[in-house]
């Protein structure tokens, strides 16, 4: 994972991955897209291969490269989880707040798993105090 993340952190390497996402290209074909020296391009290719992001095969005297997109799945799945976990937490928080508000207004009962009134009061006063102290501070 770390190797893949580091590998695609470099803009030229991301561009290489896009070049070979749909078609195989030789090192020369790839280098033709950049104002970089051939050794520099070769170095980028080596990093990408070692990170599992590029497949390479030899064809006669040339080496042909193609993206190995499953190498990037981990980045995607990390962020997928980041957001899905976050949004589930958001839902819990917003719905808990909503139930607390409804309960106070009497429009809907607020079934809670734990100590309804103290949990509600505690959270609300805590939030207010936090806001005064450091809401916009880092």
């Amino acid at each position, binding site marked *: 994972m770390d190797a893949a*993340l*580091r590998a*695609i*952190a*470099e803009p030229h390497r*991301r561009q290489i*991955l*896009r070049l*070979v*996402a*749909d078609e195989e290209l030789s090192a020369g074909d790839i280098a033709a897209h950049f104002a970089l020296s051939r050794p520099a391009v070769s170095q980028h290719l080596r990093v990408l291969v070692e990170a599992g*992001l590029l497949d390479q095969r030899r064809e006669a005297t040339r080496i042909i490269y193609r*993206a*190995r*997109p499953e*190498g*990037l799945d981990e*980045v*995607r799945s990390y*962020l*997928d989880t980041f*957001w*899905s976990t*976050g*949004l*589930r*937490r*958001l*839902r*819990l*928080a*917003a*719905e808990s*707040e*909503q139930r607390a*508000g409804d309960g106070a207004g009497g429009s809907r009962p607020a079934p809670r798993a734990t100590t309804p009134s103290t949990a509600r009061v505690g959270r609300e006063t805590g*939030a*207010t105090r*936090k*806001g005064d102290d*450091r*809401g*916009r*501070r*880092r």
Partner: protein
Amino acid sequence: MTVADDGDVIEQEIRVAAPPEAVFPYFTDPDKMRHWSGVDHELEARPGGVYHVDMGGGHVIRGAFVEVAPPHRVSFTWGWEGEDQVVPPGSSTVEVTLVPDGEGTIVRLVHRGLPAAAAPMHRAGWTHYLARLAVAGTGEDPGPDPGIGAG
């Protein structure tokens, strides 16, 4: 070049049993956001304002609000602080849309511009939506879109 050509896209959707007015501040108010994301926040909810969320453990997200239109839409740029980050600040954008759904809200989040070899994901995305179009074209309701990420 379209955005889709430039990187990966993540889409998430969730229904929250609270109206958009109640859900929106969870993306703009530090006191709300800390209930679901991050340990320390600096949020200036106006276009160009700071979006700064410290996730703890040295992971810090930095960006800027792009659009703040309560209670239905908020977008911001998004990236990890630090050198050699896969997703550096300013490189990707998160768009959040809040759609009323009865007494609740459908929260739809789209994270665009992520680095990726991308082509296979684009195909997956198009397959997902073309399949839905196909169903809609028959006059049937394809149902709520679970998003690509939901499988």
